[in-house]
Structure formats: structure tokens, C-alpha cells
């Protein structure tokens, strides 16, 4: 990288629902992150927002709706759709290009006003072949889960343990939507949505307004004593038709390899202290851990059995509760970034892990069975 980019401050408004309207939430989260950094709106360089037309309560051209609410009035700004980690990357690019010293990446999703997630995700499918057979994010994930269990001998209990862990972690997270002390049986006995997935293994539909302020190296040191550095990024898109892909060997290995290379990481399990992973379905956390190199192929079940990914383990995964606890669709990737930043800065409150976090990984995914993955490495 030509220069360094840091995250200066973060803010979020998340949970199941809120009495505040979209404009108010977008405004307050933007104001909070700017106030924390002591930056006036007029001083802010550029705004890269993420929101999705289809996850936007029936309003098209999402950016047209909230432009001034996120501080972008008469500024150079832009918008990403689908994955909010894209906005973080694009904001970093705008700073690295030398055009701006500060950039706001903001992700907006008011899940409470949206239809059910899968009412929307079915529109990812083409209208001719995949949509008529009922493919959506959950049915695609169920196909993937069945294959995963069959090929590697992973059990439903091992998958359910992810939900036990994450919903338990969420008890410490005041922003979580779904939380509780559950047993493996509770998870498996919850309503079977799409076999073999049960309700508590599927992420809910949540609200999430997430703001992340980035700055160039010099500006970051001026604005905060605790900059969190943007160390690496990787992203990879898979083929469209679910039947064309090996669902167990997707693009996450490739995306993470790019990010590790940029960050100079050769042994991820040893060099990464904590991971916030997007797991819209419980078993995916096990699979993604394999693809991120935290364990060998097919060893995701053993990894959860080993307790290593617990909040007090040697490789904590989703101490926030992850997506199973809070799932504002397009905002969820940037929310993982926010959680990783809080952990690195020691500001994660009750969900702060015991050990020192120097290097953290944040991951986002969207699309059927992980058609697209984005990985960010952050460091102290």
C-alpha cells in the first residue's frame, strides 16, 4: 500500500427494531461517529455508504433517500450495494488515492421494515431456472449443510454448538437481537425451517446502522490515540448457478489468501487473535473457519468441539454473537469490522475477550451458499 489507512472511530445502532425512523437512525449514527472523533461535518472528506434497494423497505435508489442524513450533502460520495465491507474498502481506496484525508463508511439496514430476508433473497436467483424451484439463501444453505455433513462426517450437534456459543455470547452484547442460554437440544428442537436447518441456526432479520470513520495515517494520529490499521483485504466472487459450484470449496480460501498476503500473514491461526465472521447459518461458521485456515479441511466440527472458538478460547470467533444474534443484512459485514475494532481497542465491554487482540479478522458474505466473500485484516 502507498500509505496507511486507519479506522479512527466506530458507532452503531443495532437490535431487533426501533421506534426511531430510518432518517433519525442514519443521522444519529453518523453524528455519533463524527462527534467521537471531534470532526465537524464540514471537515469530513467523503462518504461511502452501503444500503440495498431490496433491503430498503420498498424504496429504490437507497442513496437518494438518506444522502443528507449521513452527512453527505454537497459532498463527493457514493454507494455500494450488497456487502458493506465493500464500503470500507472503497473508503480506504479514496484515502489511498490521495484525494481525501477522511472518509466515512456507513451501512444502513432497517430490517424491521423489510419483508422476510428470504422473500428478498429469492430475487438473487435468475427468474428462469433457479427461482421457480424455490432457491433462496436459506434453501441454498440447507443444500450446502447437507453436503458438508455428508462429505466430512460433521454432525448436526456440532453445527448446533455454533448457535449455542454465539447466542450465549450475545448475552454480553447489548446490541444483539437474539440471545439466550440454549442447549444443543434446544437448537435442534427449534422449528425446522429448511431441513436440516432449524430456526435458531438461521440468522434473524435485524436493524443495523453502522458507521466507521477512516483517515489517512497523519490525520488518524491527529484524531485518535487508538488508531486501528487497515492491514489487508481480499474478495472473491463465485459462479452464479449453485449447481455449477462445489459448495464446499468456494471462494473464501481465495479471498482470505489475498487478505493474508496483503497483511503479511502466513499462519492465520497463530497470527490472528480473533475473528468476527458472517455466519447467516450456524454450520457456515465451521466451514468458513476451515476456509480461513483456522483448521484443516473437514475439521470444523473438531474445532468447535475443542472449545478454541469460545469467547475464552485461543481463537475466539464471534464474541459479539455474530449474525445468529444480529443480522442487518447489508450492514452485517461492516458490523463485524466494528466488533473487531472494539476488540482491538479493548472497548468491547462485557464481550471483550480476555487476551490482548493485536490482529483481528472481519468477514462478510452475501449470496447463495457464500457466492461472494470479503475479508478484512485489522491491526493495532
Amino acid at each position, binding site marked *: *500500500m*502507498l500509505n496507511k489507512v486507519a479506522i479512527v472511530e466506530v458507532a452503531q445502532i443495532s437490535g431487533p427494531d426501533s421506534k426511531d425512523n430510518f432518517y433519525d437512525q442514519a443521522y444519529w449514527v453518523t453524528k455519533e461517529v463524527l462527534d467521537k472523533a471531534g470532526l465537524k461535518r464540514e471537515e469530513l472528506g467523503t462518504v461511502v455508504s452501503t444500503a*440495498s*434497494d*431490496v433491503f430498503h423497505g*420498498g*424504496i*429504490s*435508489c*437507497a*442513496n*437518494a*433517500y*438518506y*444522502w*443528507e442524513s449521513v452527512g*453527505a*450533502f*454537497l459532498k*463527493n*460520495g*457514493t*454507494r*455500494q*450495494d*450488497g456487502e458493506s465491507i*465493500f464500503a470500507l*474498502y*472503497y473508503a*480506504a*481506496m*479514496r*484515502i*489511498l*488515492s*490521495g*484525494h481525501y484525508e477522511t472518509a466515512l463508511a456507513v451501512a444502513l439496514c432497517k430490517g424491521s421494515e423489510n419483508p422476510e430476508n428470504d422473500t*428478498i*433473497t429469492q*430475487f*438473487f436467483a*435468475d*427468474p*428462469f431456472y433457479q427461482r421457480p424451484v424455490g432457491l433462496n439463501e436459506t434453501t441454498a444453505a440447507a443444500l450446502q449443510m447437507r453436503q458438508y455433513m455428508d462429505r466430512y462426517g460433521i454432525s448436526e450437534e456440532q453445527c448446533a454448538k455454533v448457535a449455542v456459543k454465539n447466542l450465549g455470547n450475545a448475552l454480553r452484547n447489548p446490541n444483539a437481537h437474539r440471545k439466550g442460554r440454549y442447549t444443543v437440544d434446544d437448537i435442534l428442537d427449534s422449528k425446522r425451517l429448511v431441513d436440516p436447518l432449524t430456526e435458531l441456526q438461521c440468522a434473524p432479520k435485524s436493524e443495523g446502522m453502522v458507521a466507521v470513520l477512516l483517515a489517512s495515517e497523519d490525520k488518524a494520529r491527529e484524531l485518535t490515540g487508538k488508531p486501528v490499521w487497515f492491514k489487508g*483485504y*481480499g*474478495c*472473491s*466472487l*463465485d*459462479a*452464479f448457478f449453485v449447481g455449477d459450484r462445489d459448495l464446499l470449496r468456494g*471462494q473464501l480460501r*481465495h479471498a482470505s489468501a*489475498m487478505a493474508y498476503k496483503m497483511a503479511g500473514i502466513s499462519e492465520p491461526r497463530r497470527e490472528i487473535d480473533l475473528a468476527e465472521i458472517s455466519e447467516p447459518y450456524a454450520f457456515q461458521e465451521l466451514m468458513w473457519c476451515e476456509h480461513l485456515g483456522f483448521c484443516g479441511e473437514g475439521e470444523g466440527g473438531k474445532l468447535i468441539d475443542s472449545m478454541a472458538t469460545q469467547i475464552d478460547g485461543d481463537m475466539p470467533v464471534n464474541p459479539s454473537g455474530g449474525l445468529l444474534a444480529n443480522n442487518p443484512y447489508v450492514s452485517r459485514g461492516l458490523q463485524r469490522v466494528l466488533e473487531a475494532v472494539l476488540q482491538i481497542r479493548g472497548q468491547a465491554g462485557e464481550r471483550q475477550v480476555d487476551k490482548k487482540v493485536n490482529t483481528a479478522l472481519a468477514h462478510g458474505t*452475501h*449470496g*447463495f451458499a457464500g*457466492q*461472494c466473500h470479503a475479508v478484512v485484516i485489522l491491526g493495532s
Partner: protein
Amino acid sequence: MGRAVAIIGVGQSKHGKRMDVCYPDLVREAVVAVFEDSGLTPDDIDGVVSGTMPSMMEGVAMTHFYFAEAMQAVGKPILKTETCGSTGVSTAQTAYYWVSSGMADVVLAVGHEKMNEGDSQATMTTVMEPFYQKYFLSGAPGVFSMQSQGWSVRFNIPEEKVREAAAVISVNHHDSAFDNPYAHVKVRLTVDDVKNAKVITYPIRLYDVCPNSDGACAVIFASEEMAKKLCKKPAWVKGVGYRGEEQFFGDSDKAVWPSAVGAAKEAYEQAGITNPRKELDVAEVYNPFTYQEMLFYECFGFCDFGEAPDLVLKGVFSRDGELPCDPSGGVLCTNPIGATGLIRVAEAAMQVTDKAGARQIPGAKMALAHAMGGIDQFNGVLILGSEL
């Protein structure tokens, strides 16, 4: 500033009512064309930017999934840029920043829309804020009619003069479309045809309005080092500007339009342009409505406010005029919205690299490309030049 960036290849589909191809194949047509034009292969591409209008347009959400193969994006990093009508220029600017930042050397930008698969005006009605504005601002023509009326009243331009100038613009662009093999609407018109066409939203008549087009456009951006290695005649990005305004129509000035003025000013400053009418050789202005095009001339500093109709009638912005605007026929003849802004960029790149065929402005060295979007909210400008 960061690294210098150049355009080293452009590709367009044939635009129009393309019932002969499905949506991914329409995208593929432009992507195949850009690889033919640049001589590159998909292996040379470090990242892909995809841009489109909202999902309601064609009923498929997050089309970067659907077009993964068509865009040759499998196994590559992707960004999905959407800013309404200005999407095409925002997509180009995303590719620009990606390369300029040093995070990629060669980036493919793709814009696409298949408007004949859906109902564009119904879609645009869902862009309005749903509680107060949706009920009186349905569709695009209503918004732009109000804007043009406000502008002509503000500057005391007689209605007849505006009408005459708009008709001249329409005739010129429709003539130019015959020189553009990719253009959609090709019809010979007289000034009287335009003036007597049926009213869409007063004062806008049929030939003052762009069509619904199916089309795709692909443009390859590269770093200075790669551009010099891979391309004999690159088009250099000299300036990038963008500004956005608030949602509520009526809260701000749409005649001396701050986002249009600001976006152009930002791009001019980077390109070192102080007298745009003199220093630009050609402009691809985003002109879905004839009236609005004149407003852009003024906001971009091509002339003073209130002066555009007179200069149009004098031929200043005609093909053989001082600053030819939209020699491609422009948006007025071809509008696949998610691709439209990127087509402006592609056409500008072709002009400064002497590749524009029958619509070439001889000797063009500096060009402006522009797109506009939202409820009259967003404007983006790129300046391209033949020299680094």
C-alpha cells in the same frame, strides 16, 4: 494525488430493444467487446466493478451475482456501485479510485440495464420518499419538467425560445445517432416534428425524452505503468468530480444546480481547466431531456446562466460548433440507465483517442463525461484527455 489512471479499452453492446438476447448475454456482448478492443484477457483483470439501477427495474436483485460469468468476474474481487442515474459515472469513478489507490493495476467497469424487461417509470416512482413526495412526483418527466420550468422562469427566457432551442437539440442528436452504430433510436426529425410531438409532461414532448433501452457498456481502467505497456493510445483520467444533494425536491435550487456546478468544478480543478468552453473539445452530457441539457451547459460553465438557448440556436454546441455536445446522439437516443453514464465515459474516451468513427470530433484532445441521478440529486463528471 495518487497514481495516474487511464482508460485502455471500451466495449458496448448494440443498444435498443434487445429481445434477441437474455440479460446476461447482453452484458457478455459488451464485455467481449472490451476484451477485443483492448487485446487483454480476463486473466489481466485485477478487479471488477458492476453498476446498475435498482432491482425493481428488471426484477433481479444484486445482479453482480447473476453476471459473475458474463463479466468474467469469477474468482475476482468485485465492487457493486449504485447511485441511481449517475451509476455509470460512479462505476467509472470506483474503477478510477481502485487503480489510483494502488490496490489494483487493471480494473474492469461494467454497466448494464435491460429496461424492456420491466417498467422504468414505475421503478422511478419508488425512488421518491414514500410519505410526502411519491404522490406528486411520479416518474422522471414530472421532476425534470418542473426543473426546466423553474430555470426558464428564473432567467426570463421566453418560452418560445426555449422550445425552439430544445427542438434544435433534439434534431441534432437524432441526426448524430445515425453516425453511432450502437445507438438505439434512429429517426430523422425536423424542428417542427419535435415541436408538434405529443406532450409527455408539459412542456416536454415525445422527442424531448430519452427512450427505454437495453444495453451494456464495459470500460477497462489501468495504472500509468500498465497503460503504457498495454495500450498504444490510452485516454487519461484528468479529473473526477461528484456531488449529491438532499432528497426532498424543492428544498434546494435546481436552476443554479449546486451538485452539477460542484461536480464540474471539482473535476475542472483537478484537470486544470479554467475556461471549459475553450479547453474542452467535446462533451458527453447526460441529457435524458432536451431542456435539462441546456441547464447543464450553464452549470458546467460552458456559458452564462440563461444564455444556453441563444448559443444552441447559434450552433455553439452543434457537431461543427465551438464545443460539440453529445456527438454520439447522447442519452436522448440511447438510455440503458445503469450503463448510460459509463457509455458517456466510453464515448469521451473514444473521442480523445480518435476512435469514434463517423461521430469523431476531429482533433479532440480533452473531453467531459457526465451523469445525473436521483430526484435531481446527483451529478458526476469525468474529464478525459489524450495526454498524461
